[in-house]
């Protein structure tokens, strides 16, 4: 019975959201595409105040593979509810208005649309408190309770958003206003960790962070239509205290940065280290980031072929790896790399990260790249 009541109340809460006022922290900044890894800079907004508030992406945007990254059709704020630390991890809990998003399974992309009952897009971030490195590939779940009663519990998905960056998120109905206790649980990650991260992030941990869903916090989140929505480019991430999964600029990567290429608006930067993080062997690392904003593009299957004078010297997968210096990357120990070697990168599974509007058409049809190192 209680659940049925939740649904009715939540619909009311949702409609309040759309009318919320503006208290945001990035609404007055011009939305601008960040300089991308190739050095381009694309202004995406003239800074004139947006005209209206509305619930974002309520209207499904047709997915158009090949379109690449485009500026989402709205600007928005999120409310950072709190942070907490446990074990190897620091967590943050945020919310925004409910969102449409797209999940990926293999090469299949499915849209998750906002349901009438949804009150918020709940988001969690998790990072290493020592280095601020965001963990872009682990398991995250949330349990929401109020006064000891279970409201919801779900595994939430890793996803990319232009203004909100990389996060784990999902839409949730809430049974009206109040203070909720959200238990955010992280699983130990299964991807390779190297360097000072070796042996870390292998255990689960959980924190409780209160969530205030009230008129005041709803006023912190809002969205407004954006005239430049749909143009190539991306909004800048909001300025928040939550670390972003932004990868180092190409030239700041460790090792010898040898080449970069682009495939369906993901930029791949190849760097090599003589004494790499795996047994001190020579190491090939490929850092994959979004064309704008340099967000990590996680959870691909990436194969590499390294050819020297027409002969293959390495052929195999590059493993998803988290390293304090290289950050999230795809890497393999190799016998050595010489100037002039040819590196062919082949994406055998597209990034399995879910996408908010503006990313759903990118990283879908990813041709091989051949880079001369």
């Amino acid at each position, binding site marked *: 019975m209680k659940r049925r009541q939740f649904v009715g109340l939540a619909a009311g809460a949702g409609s309040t959201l759309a009318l919320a006022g503006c208290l945001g922290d990035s609404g007055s900044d011009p939305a601008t595409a960040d300089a991308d890894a190739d050095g381009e800079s694309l202004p995406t907004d003239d800074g004139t105040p947006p005209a209206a508030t509305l619930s974002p992406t309520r209207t499904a945007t047709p997915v158009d593979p090949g379109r690449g990254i485009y500026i989402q059709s709205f600007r928005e704020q999120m409310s950072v509810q709190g942070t907490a630390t446990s074990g190897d991890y620091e967590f943050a809990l945020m919310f925004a208005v409910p969102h449409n998003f797209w999940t990926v399974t293999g090469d299949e992309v499915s849209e998750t649309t906002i349901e009438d009952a949804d009150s918020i897009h709940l988001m969690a971030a998790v990072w290493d408190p020592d280095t601020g490195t965001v963990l872009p590939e682990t*398991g995250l779940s949330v349990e929401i309770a109020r006064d000891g009663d279970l409201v919801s*519990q779900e*595994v939430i998905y890793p996803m990319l958003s232009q203004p909100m960056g990389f996060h784990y998120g999902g839409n949730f109905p809430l049974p009206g206003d109040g203070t909720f206790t959200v238990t955010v649980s992280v699983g130990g990650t299964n991807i390779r960790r190297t360097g000072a991260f070796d042996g870390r992030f292998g255990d689960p941990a959980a924190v409780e962070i209160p969530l205030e869903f009230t008129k005041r916090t709803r006023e912190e989140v809002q969205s407004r239509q954006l005239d430049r929505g749909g143009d190539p480019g991306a909004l800048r991430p909001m300025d928040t205290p939550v670390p972003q999964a932004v990868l180092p600029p190409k030239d700041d990567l460790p090792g010898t940065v040898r080449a970069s290429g682009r495939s369906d608006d993901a930029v791949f930067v190849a760097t090599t280290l003589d004494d790499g993080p795996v047994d001190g062997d020579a190491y090939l690392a490929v850092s994959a980031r979004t064309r704008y904003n340099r967000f990590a593009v996680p959870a691909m299957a990436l194969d590499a072929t390294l050819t020297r004078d027409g002969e293959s010297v390495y052929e195999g997968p590059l493993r998803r790896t988290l390293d304090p210096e290289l950050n999230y990357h795809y890497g393999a120990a190799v016998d050595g790399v010489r100037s002039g070697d040819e590196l062919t990168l082949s994406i055998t599974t597209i990034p399995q990260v879910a996408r908010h509007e503006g990313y759903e058409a990118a990283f879908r049809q990813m041709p091989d790249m051949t880079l001369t190192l």
Partner: protein
Amino acid sequence: MVLDSDLPRRQFLRTAVALGGAGALAACQERVDGGATPTGDPTAKPRRQHAWREYVPHDDSGNSLLPEHQVLLYVDLDGDGPPGEDARSTLESALATLDRAYEWHADGLLHSVAYSPAYFDRFDADLPPSVELPEPRALSAFETPTFDTQDAVVHLASNRPDVVLEADEALTGDRELVNGEPVDARLTDVATVDSRRTGFVGAGLPAEHQDAAGIPASKPVPEASPLFMGFDAGFVGNQATEDAVTIEEGPFAGGTTKVIANIRQRLEDWYDEQDYDERVAELFSPGHAEEGLVEGVGTNLGDDSGIDRFLDDVADRARESGRVGHAQKAARANRDDDGNVRLLRRHFESTDDIGSDDAVASLHFPSLQRRISAFEEVREAMNGADITAATPAVRQRVNNGILEYIFVRRRGNFLVPPRRHRSVPTPRPAES
């Protein structure tokens, strides 16, 4: 939870079991129409407390139909240190009452008592090497269950709700007669109930109780399904035999080990975001979906899910389909060297939410095996960590069998002694 006389009969009876107590029993007895309960012959009880297979009905394919109503009483013995002879004779007397009062059958009562590692810590002596009973532990990189470390768990099971309730009252209440037999001693004379958990299993019952948190409001659980997830489970061909899980040597020969988890089920996305074929792929294997092997709740599978055909190329198939099946992953570790199944799973559904009065879909998952490590190995295989390394489409809990939809909240490990040592055994009882 309220016992509302307007509830449909089966829902009323099930609610009575969940509530427990003398009032629930009285209300339940007014509404059952099962006739007289067969009484028991204490000398006709099997030597194994876990002997169910011959005493429960089977479906047309020979699959066991587990008792519809079940109660788990987690108890702590009063006092510290090893229990004395008084406690032993009192408990034995209480259990003997059940032996006399009910036939050993699903239409009578199946019952057992099992002991935890914490119980055996009361003694200076260790368990013999023939018994492997470690403390419960987390078995995946993402679960943080609370461990059940009570001394013992009493399991009551019957197709008759009035019988489990009455047996519960015989052990913990103040009744002087149960099914015509005098009650001379009670479990609660020597122990205190720390946690009472209840559940149900069998076609129809989950559908009737799907108005619980965790199940979509659209009431998607099919009437024919014995479980909330909408499919049959526990096919006889995919279950260990009772012989295979029975300890063969030492003083506890004839016993078994029992891992009991309580798992919260969150089935909104299971039903709303996935179509039938995706559910089949994630519960059984992608091959089951592609070949259309499953119809409806899967009764057409007969006595075997056919999972063994889909174990050789699990990672390759996951790369192709972006998903891996739950049964497929687990089965990889659930076979011994001769190909025999290692675990005997006897899970049942519940709307218990331990720690609150909310109705929340959950699963009590008792598994029997000769050694606890067999369960741990199967659970490890079910985590599919190797598959997440093989393809990023399968994540820690997404597209990875049913892990997205289940949350382990409790786990306890127990030794189910043979009947002769069922009452507060020492770690080294006599061998015969």
